[in-house]
């Protein structure tokens, strides 16, 4: 850390329409995670403009950023980032808590989303009692629970084997089919090809932006 800053992104011009499923590819250090973090308001850009659903995202106070994150964005991380002392349903309910919903509604909604990712019967299990794939599905349920406009996934399959990777990607495709805009950062080509559009970054600039034919995975989730 420290104060020394590094210019990672060097001019990105990008438009993503509603309902797209975009893969952001690139080798490590290409700036793909930084881009995603800026989109997710987890990080800020030094220059340039970012509009999310026509809202200019600039110079936000932490409080407003928190509110926007809560309302507009859902995050899925490579390392899941579940809160380890909360069980599955409590983890899923957390963004709803920050939305200020009543406890009963939170519980009900969280269960609903857990059911969507096929983990209803695991609701009371702690993250430590779940497999990697299950954890990521809980994380996806958590990201979805607040009904965000955009789902941002940073290497969602990075810590998973190929079988569970497919399961998770299947889930993401399914969510996309329901109309959600999703950005997936990945460095795996086969994962990228499960998306509808691939943006390739290199050294902080977009070197390729192409629509692809989506490879559908079996959506039957165990």
């Amino acid at each position: 850390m420290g104060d020394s800053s590094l210019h990672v992104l060097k001019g990105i011009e990008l438009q993503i329409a509603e309902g797209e499923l975009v893969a952001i590819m690139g080798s490590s250090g290409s700036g793909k995670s930084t881009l995603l973090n800026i989109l997710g308001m987890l990080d800020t850009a030094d220059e340039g403009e970012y509009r999310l659903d026509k809202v200019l995202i600039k110079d936000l106070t932490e409080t407003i950023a928190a509110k926007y994150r809560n309302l507009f964005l859902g995050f899925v991380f490579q390392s899941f980032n579940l809160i380890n002392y909360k069980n599955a349903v409590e983890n899923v309910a957390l963004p709803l808590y920050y939305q200020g919903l009543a406890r009963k509604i939170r519980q009900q909604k969280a269960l609903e989303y857990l059911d969507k990712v096929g983990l209803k019967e695991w609701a009371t299990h702690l993250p430590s009692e779940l497999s990697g794939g299950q954890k990521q599905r809980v994380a996806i349920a958590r990201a979805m629970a607040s009904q965000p406009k955009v789902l941002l996934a940073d290497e969602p399959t990075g810590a998973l084997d190929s079988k569970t990777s497919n399961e998770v990607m299947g889930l993401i495709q399914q969510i996309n089919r329901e109309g959600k805009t999703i950005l997936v950062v990945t460095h795996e080509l086969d994962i990228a090809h499960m998306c509808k559009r691939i943006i390739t970054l290199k050294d902080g600039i977009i070197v390729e932006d192409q629509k692809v034919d989506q490879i559908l995975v079996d959506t039957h989730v165990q």
Partner: protein
Amino acid sequence: MFNRDRWQEIFQTIRKNKLRTLLSGFTVALGIFIFIVLFGFGNGLKNSFKQFFLDDATNTLWVYPGLTSKPYRGFKANRRIEFENNDLEDIRNNFEFFLEDITPRISRRSIVKYKGESDNYSTRAVAPAHQYMEKTIMMKGRFIHQDDLSNKTKIVVIGRLVAEDLFKDEDPIGKYIEVGSIAFKVVGVFQDQSGDREERLIYMPYTTRQLLEKNNDKIDYFIVSFRPEMGYTSTLAFERQLRLFLKNKKDIDPRDNNGIRIRNVADQIRQNQQFASVLQIIVAFVGIGTLIAGIIGISNIMVFVVKERTKELGVRKALGATPKNVIAMVLQESIFITTLSGVFGMICGIFLLRNIGDRLAQFFIIDPYIESITAMIATVLLIIFGAIAGYIPAKRAASIKPIVALRDE
């Protein structure tokens, strides 16, 4: 603050992070506990200093003869000074302005017998004024009267324990006991607050003792009481004048410090109270030190707690927690724990003090206590500082960009 959801969130965090909770709670509880116990001990010390003087009148000078250390008016050094009955008279006549009363004391050990029982006791031959000066409390009968002095009657006033030893269940009043093979009539039984030693004494008129010792007029030493309304400086003036008077009368060099010794009880009490106050200050200092150590301890733990939770706080922020949410959560948890454990430590400390009573009397700690307001202030202070100590790292954690907090180690 009274949001049920937030409390539930906090209780869950506490429940799921027992070690952390225990650690910070223990630090606070221990800090308060030690502070209260130490402070209480300070008060206990003060109490015990007070008690040292409870059994004697405090407006007294104790005047002892000594050995001269300088030759004077033709007398050699190392002369033993002795007091006689006329010294009492002279003091009475010369110090009317200061004087309340005066009593001599002649102490002897004697074998005392009653029927089959016999033992060795200390006897004190005194004047009636002695009762007031030693705060002797009569249980039965009477103390020595002025008539006893003039008639040199063979009466004794015996201590509670003497009566128990010699008479068992019998009523000693009017009975005759042998003191050094001379029969004395018991006219009174007394008790004394300063304890067993004082209650194993036997009092008799000093004139009677002098009669038994070849009718001399020697006195071991005497106790003078001055008017209680006299201020501290007049006391010192009286002491100084009395010393000069006696030195002149007994032909002692005015610069000789050894011929006459005067113990001024008022002065002693004053010194002792000052000493006790100094002790209290030291104890309070140590107590405050403990409190500060507790504050530093809780600060460290809070820094550690926030550090440990950085990632969790980052996740919460990514999910929509505002900085305020984050700070409030960390703070409320810390205040909750410090309050609970602070009060617990306080109650334990107070409880311990209450139960000590006089069990530590051998260490000069009697009835230790702490004013509840002091205990409260200390506890509240610790809670406030715990909150401040939690606020600083919590604020920092809340302002870290979530991406920094979430970065994989």
